[in-house]
């Protein structure tokens, strides 16, 4: 049984101008010890999905329908008090901007201790010892001194380490990392990713890595979900997504990454146009208005996800047109469908 199972999740923001459908039917499973990447551009619903799982959505956002099961236990509909015991304990999250994610008016130690005392019976003293241990674990030097400091006295990379220490203090089963490296320098990014991977192996947790950076995905993810406009375009193993993208949007994403190994000077191809307005979701494929190969059907009907390989699904009419997909999961040994240009 998978550790986390999300089924047909719909989350909307009820604004004065109407319902903004931020997440529109997201489903996925996360197995123990795996790293799942969720990739997509800004506004594709990645972060909202994460907040929905944690149920830390703020007004006017709320889960409209769907199911989120942790170890087979339904989380949607749980009371605030029940969810509170899961947050930071079973599922933890770290955020994009470490500059603003720590409370400026309390010391690092105070905030770490709080996380520990909330979910364990440790005394204040034991919690402090644990806090120091955690800071050491995430590679912060002189942790005894650091716990008396405020967030503004630390660098960005250090703060993100503190965030990680705080998230992992209660040894959660799942760590959701919401663009954890976006706000950091490139060299620090690599360090933080490495740290997360090593801690994941050490503690045996699962990670949901939310990012818009294909490089991060390639570096650490086992499986990948490509999101667009609140829905899934394509999913599969990292290899399948990288080497055999079967959705026009994913291909677009790939073409927009610079390839340093390429000797020739290949042009980067941007994806033109802007994402659709989630207040007025069109009936067809949400990417169709920006898609070079869009067909009439793409504008009229939303494509379902069809299997295009044993561990690879894609929601694109082009695959259907080319007869390059299966309705059921193909048997083992079936060859991966080739790109169909």
């Amino acid at each position, binding site marked *: 049984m998978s550790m986390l199972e999300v089924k047909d999740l719909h989350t909307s923001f009820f604004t004065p101008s109407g319902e903004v459908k931020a997440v529109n039917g997201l489903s996925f499973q996360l197995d123990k010890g795996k790293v799942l990447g969720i990739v997509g551009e800004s506004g594709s619903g990645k972060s909202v999905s994460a907040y929905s799982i*944690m149920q830390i959505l703020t007004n006017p956002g709320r889960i409209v329908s769907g199911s989120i099961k942790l170890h087979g236990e339904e989380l949607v509909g749980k009371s605030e008090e029940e969810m509170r015991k899961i947050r*930071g304990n079973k599922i933890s999250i770290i955020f994009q901007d470490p500059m603003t994610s720590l*409370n400026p008016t309390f010391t690092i130690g105070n905030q770490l201790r709080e*996380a520990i005392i909330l979910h364990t019976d440790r005394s204040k003293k034991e919690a402090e010892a644990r806090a120091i241990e955690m800071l050491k674990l995430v590679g912060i030097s002189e942790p005894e001194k650091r716990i008396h400091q405020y967030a503004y006295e630390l660098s960005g990379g250090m703060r993100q380490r503190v965030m990680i220490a705080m998230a992992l203090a209660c040894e959660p089963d799942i760590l959701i990392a919401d663009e954890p490296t976006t706000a950091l320098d490139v060299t620090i990014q690599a360090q933080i990713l490495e740290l997360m991977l090593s801690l994941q192996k050490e503690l045996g947790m699962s990670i949901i890595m939310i990012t818009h950076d294909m490089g991060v995905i390639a570096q650490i993810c086992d499986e990948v979900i490509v999101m667009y406009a609140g829905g899934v375009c394509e999913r599969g193993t990292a290899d399948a997504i990288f080497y055999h993208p079967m959705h026009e949007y994913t291909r677009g994403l790939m073409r927009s990454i610079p390839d340093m190994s390429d000797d020739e000077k290949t042009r980067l191809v941007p994806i033109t146009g802007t994402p659709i307005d989630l207040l007025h979701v069109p009936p067809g494929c949400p990417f169709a208005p920006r898609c070079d190969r869009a067909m009439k059907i793409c504008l009229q009907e939303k494509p379902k996800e069809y299997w295009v390989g044993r561990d690879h699904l894609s929601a694109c009419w082009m695959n259907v047109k080319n007869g390059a997909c299966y309705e059921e999961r193909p048997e083992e040994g079936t060859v991966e469908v080739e790109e169909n240009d």
Partner: protein
Amino acid sequence: MNAKFYAYLFKRLLMALLTIFLVIAITFFVMHAIPASPFSSEKAKSDAVIAALEAKYGFDKPVPVQFLNYLWSILHGDFGLSTGWVGNTVIDLIIGGFSYSAQIGFTAGLLAIVLGVVFGSIAALQRGKALDKLIQVLTTALVSMPSFVMATILLLVFALLLGWLPSMGNQPGGLILPVISLSLYPMAYVTRLQRSSMLDVLGQDYIRTARAKGVKNTKVIFKHALKNTLTPVITYAGPMMAYILTGSMVVENIFSVPGLGRLFTNSMLRTDYMMIMGVTIFLATMIILMNFIGDILYKVVDPRIDLT
């Protein structure tokens, strides 16, 4: 607190002292320009007054010297003799009146801050709901009412029509209405300040972090949010002091409280210029000091603020 903080403290103190000096200078030179002022020898005064003033400040001397003399006496707590209340020194009258004003003003200020923070937080947490709307309507109405309107209406309704509370400040319970009249406007102001500040803080990333850790909602608000929301309220301390001190001029007159405010307006009626100068300088000093304290507290509460 480090060396940087003390440097800031020193700089800010210097600024406050400079402002106080400026107020004294403005007061002196404005008064000096009035033909009937004690510093002007044009108009006929009683010989005794002229003799006393001359001995003290020296009319025959140039104006800057007179100013220095005045400044020097103030530094020694000597604001001169009252001409409106003959036989009293200005400083004694000020201290006598201030004991009443401080009582009313302190209670009103405390009431305004405590209730304002509570109501503002409630409004923010109930955002968009009926209670929030009610609080918003009431506070908008209250900040649109001058202190004299507020005080006179309270006097009319609760003292004259209903007879629940005394109308005079010297009766038992007589300070209740003055305190309420003085506190309503700053309370409404603090409520609005606290509401927007709380809404702002609740949208911050670190609040999301606290919730994601599994902190209880009440604790999120009282531990993580409240301390961060207080900074705007603290910066309002100085302006509130100014409001309460000037408001007490009106309120003390309406409720016949023998405080500093009434003393001030009475000294205007009696054209007691020494008194006017003394009270102006005294009140200004209080306001400037409160501004100074507010500024310092602001930095203490929020350690991330750049000390420049």
